[in-house]
């Protein structure tokens, strides 16, 4: 049996909460709002700094702006090798003996290639187009396309389409919401996403936790996921979705499974996931019926059979070293959509060692996959959706130019809903009512307000994308899609530029 350690933790606090007691009028809103137990009231507001996660809930709702949060003023002996983060983590593991858990996407300062790509614009030889005066089309179709179309003539000698097209999803903006399960996020988050997806003509994704019965009316704009735990998967669920996604991997945790702790599995989640109340929902690392590519093909066609070939089937994988060949295999296995999640992609909970060290950036994965599928002449057979830290409309424009059909936003959507990226999703204490199931917290997010904020975000991005297209002198998104000629790299080495298929800035056409 392990020796009992001192109850006093050696780990210094991360943040310092300063309350200006001259301004504070002791209304206790901060105390009521703090879900991490940091803000306490002992005659006056008295923060427990060690519990602060910098979620900003208290500062946002303080009517006197009396609260400020700073880094905890703690100086470590300078050391570029033994960084503060490493020393803190070592202390945590010495105290707990556990895997370091965390939430959200990879925060480490790896190169962000989006920020090393620059977009072209028209000058003189070809005119730019004013998006306020001319149509500027973003309509996108996800699904498998044939190499060519065939036509025939009807009895009146009119040309008619002979080719039977595979099922497609029409998007009004090439940005879809990421897979976030009911369980990882609250019902109100799901509802906000579902309403916004319907209003904006895009998609939300159930993630691996099934779809709550209240949200079936929105299912025409919902991609339903089938993950290794098969939680909430049943015939009506598959048939309800606009598309079905087989989740193989996730950028924040490639190669490992998932775990929703039993305390989060209340009655509603239990019904939706089809598991008993209070039991842990464990998603195995692999699908236990997929041990090779031919097994994946069987599952793809099993789902197509179950949905009468009416729904596109997506396969989602994490961006790993051999992603191009794997994606090619997935297309040949019959997937209509391939979703690739880069190593900066978000999550509700993951071991930090996996999140911070496994996988490759989405920019490189996307470029490699798009080129591989073109080299093999099968690019049209599947749509390519890219995920894993799409932060702003500029990232979307660059991703589309590299070859993506559409982009996925998870963290950006959550930030729109109030998330402050404090990375404490796995604790279930989310003060903004997002990554929690505590009813007193989840009710903080009103789905009407949330969906409006999401619609606003997408509307803003839509206008920004249209501005970019106009400056590029094209009036339709498909003229940017895969047009790497309109990108230039800055501060990138030759090999990276080659993988991206992009010339360095300063080189003309």
């Amino acid at each position: 049996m392990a020796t009992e350690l001192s109850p006093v933790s050696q780990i210094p606090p991360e943040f310092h909460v300063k309350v200006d007691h001259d301004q504070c009028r002791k209304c206790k809103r901060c105390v009521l709002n703090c879900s991490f137990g940091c803000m306490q009231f002992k005659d006056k507001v008295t923060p427990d700094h060690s519990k602060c996660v910098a979620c900003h809930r208290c500062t946002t709702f303080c009517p006197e702006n009396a609260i400020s949060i700073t880094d905890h003023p703690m100086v470590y002996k300078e050391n570029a090798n033994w960084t503060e983060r490493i020393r803190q983590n070592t202390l945590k593991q010495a105290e707990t003996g556990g895997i370091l858990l965390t939430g959200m996407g990879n925060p480490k300062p790896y190169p962000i290639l989006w920020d090393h790509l620059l977009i072209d614009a028209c000058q003189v030889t070809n005119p730019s187009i004013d998006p306020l005066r001319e149509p500027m089309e973003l309509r996108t179709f996800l699904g498998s396309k044939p190499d060519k179309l065939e036509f025939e003539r009807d009895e009146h000698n009119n040309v008619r389409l002979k080719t039977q097209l595979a099922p497609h999803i029409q998007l009004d903006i090439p940005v879809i919401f990421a897979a976030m399960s009911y369980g990882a996020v609250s019902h109100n988050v799901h509802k906000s996403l579902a309403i916004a997806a319907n209003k904006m003509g895009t998609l939300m994704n159930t993630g691996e936790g099934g779809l709550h019965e209240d949200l079936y009316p929105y299912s025409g704009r919902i991609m339903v996921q089938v993950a290794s735990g098969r939680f909430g998967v049943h015939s009506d669920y598959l048939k309800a979705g606009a598309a079905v996604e087989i989740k193989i991997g996730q950028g924040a945790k490639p190669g490992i499974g998932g775990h929703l702790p039993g305390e989060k599995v209340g009655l509603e989640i239990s019904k939706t996931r089809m598991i008993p109340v209070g039991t842990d929902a464990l998603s195995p690392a692999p699908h236990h019926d997929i041990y090779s590519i031919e097994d994946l093909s069987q599952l793809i066609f099993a789902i197509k059979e179950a949905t009468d070939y009416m729904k596109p089937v997506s396969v989602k994988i994490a961006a790993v070293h051999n992603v191009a060949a794997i994606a090619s295999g997935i297309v040949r296995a019959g997937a209509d959509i391939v979703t690739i999640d880069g190593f900066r992609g978000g999550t509700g909970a993951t071991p930090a060692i996996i999140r911070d060290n496994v996988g490759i950036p989405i920019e490189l994965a996307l470029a490699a996959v798009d080129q591989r599928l073109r080299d093999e002449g099968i690019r049209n057979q599947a749509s390519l959706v890219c995920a894993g830290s799409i932060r702003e409309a500029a990232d979307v424009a660059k991703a589309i130019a590299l070859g993506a059909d559409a982009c996925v936003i998870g963290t950006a959507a959550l930030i729109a809903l109030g998330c402050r990226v404090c990375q404490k999703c796995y604790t279930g204490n989310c003060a903004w009512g997002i990554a929690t199931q505590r009813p007193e917290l989840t009710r903080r997010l009103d789905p009407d307000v949330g969906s409006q904020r999401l619609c606003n975000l997408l509307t803003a991005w839509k206008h920004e994308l249209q501005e970019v297209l106009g400056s590029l002198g094209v009036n339709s998104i498909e003229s940017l899609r895969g047009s790497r000629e309109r990108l230039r790299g800055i501060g990138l080495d030759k090999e990276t530029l080659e993988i991206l298929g992009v010339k360095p800035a300063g080189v003309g056409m």
Partner: protein
Amino acid sequence: MRCNTRIPSGCAISGMMCESGDRVDGSAIIKSIALMHDRSNGLGGGFAAYGIYPRRADQYAFHMMFDDFAAKENFDEYVKDHFIVERDEVIPTSPFGNITSPPVLWRYFLNVDEKKLEFVEDREYVVNKVMEINSNVPGAFVSSSGKNMGAFKGVGYPEDIGHFYKLEEYKGYIWTSHGRFPTNTPGWWGGAHPFGLLDWSIVHNGEISSYGINKRYLEMFGYKLELRTDTEVVAYLFDLLVRRQNLPMELAVKALSAPFWDNIDRMEPHTKELMTAIRMVYGGALLNGPYSIILGHSRGMMGLNDRIKLRPMTCGRKDDMLYMASEESAIREIEPDLDTVWSPKAGEAVVGTLNGEVE
């Protein structure tokens, strides 16, 4: 010698066709393009002519440009291995003041040995060989490769190029022409317009802003884009859609210069289905950016503008003659008394079709 960077350029284009198949000599088209002198800058001009080799109408007429005679010798070795050479001769030119340092200009009338066509259709074979020559035979360039047609092009003002090639001495039922205003000096004759492949020829005023994806789309179907010109892209897209995939011309045009979704959404159901499918499947073929194009082929001529008409094009008709040009004046210059004259709408193709037999 060869220019491997892409050079944006402005241009003048003019085309004329006799739909009944009567042939006229090249003096009219020279006069028409000469009127638009100011739209080019002396760095490129050219013509395509159909019906010029009636006695060898069944043979592939390869108009070749060689850097020097050594390159020609390389090509002569190559061509013997891959084709039956029925005749080869110098392309006649007249020394003309403004035209300097032309390449070696030669034409070959070729047939393909049946034995080579066991696994491939003859036009496909010829396309593959044209790609191979342009990529792999040093110093040799195929300027045009169709039957009973040819491209005549070079560095200079178009009217000077026309006289240099003695186009007054050829008779054709379709003539197209091009005057170029490139933004820097190509110095390479092969880079001038028209661009030809089989009996396709393209003259083009504009810049394809979607070049990057059009190129990658074509590469997926095995095309090698050696010239890095917009014109090459346009010609290959027609080759892919019309020759290889058998799209009716009127639908190929809708893939290249697609109607807007707002308009498609208002179409009657069958047309809507058709147009939606075309845009979904042929997004990579959508030509975006400013352009006006005249496409020539053995059965007709077609004019096409970009989706929002960012470059000019005017058309006119007189009896069985169809004219199209960057400026109306260029048509009036050779046919002052037109039956009709109009500016085609954005994205709407103007089609001239050969009704009769070529005389």
